[in-house]
């Protein structure tokens, strides 16, 4: 999802932009169309999976660097 990717990159500089854009796109009139809804959900799911994978990688790297005694 291109707009989300860009917004996530801008988030550190503009806190809250991701939430604002999600709220905006979440109410987009085009979503009245079932096919557009489906595409919207699929793109959000893809973005969430990508973020979750990155999170798991951060955790793995941190735990490798700081093993519990």
């Amino acid at each position, binding site marked *: 999802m291109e707009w*989300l990717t860009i917004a*996530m990159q801008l988030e550190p500089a503009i806190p809250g932009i*991701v*939430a604002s854009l*999600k709220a905006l796109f*979440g*109410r987009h*009139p085009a*979503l*009245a169309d*079932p096919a557009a*809804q*489906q595409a*919207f*959900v*699929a793109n*959000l*799911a*893809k*973005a*969430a*999976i990508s*973020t*979750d*994978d*990155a*999170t*798991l990688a*951060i*955790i793995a790297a*941190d*735990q490798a660097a*700081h093993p*519990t*005694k």
Partner: protein
Amino acid sequence: MGRLADGFCTKSRVLSAVLLLSLYGCGASNPTPPAVPTPPNSPQSTVALTVNTVADTDQAAVKTVIALRDQGKLSQANTTTIENWLAFVATTDKQIAAILAKPEPWAAQKVEIYTLLATVTAPTIAGTIDPAAQVIITQIMTLLNTIKTQVVP
């Protein structure tokens, strides 16, 4: 000649008045159309938005926990406990996203997501932890409970 000029002027005035009235009338007969109400999101869209927010919050939580540990505000043991829980949340969130992406009816997706969320509980932390770390856990639990209410059968 004078009568002709007077007649021409009178006709011009009448024509101008008619033109002005018709212009005014055109404006009055075309009022601004009423605003089209925004359609509600589908239940899948609402859940997908929350799932994506969980993913963002979970990642921010991991970074915060690491920062707290590095600042000496969180023990390594508690950091590992919270990280393990955040990893479990990320894995569960991925599974929910995968369910949403499947070409299944919403009724079936709801049941799968609800069953999956039943396995998530807050982590057990040894002793007192930094308030910032506690806030993170509460925030994520609130988001997960929001999804739960969105898919409750």
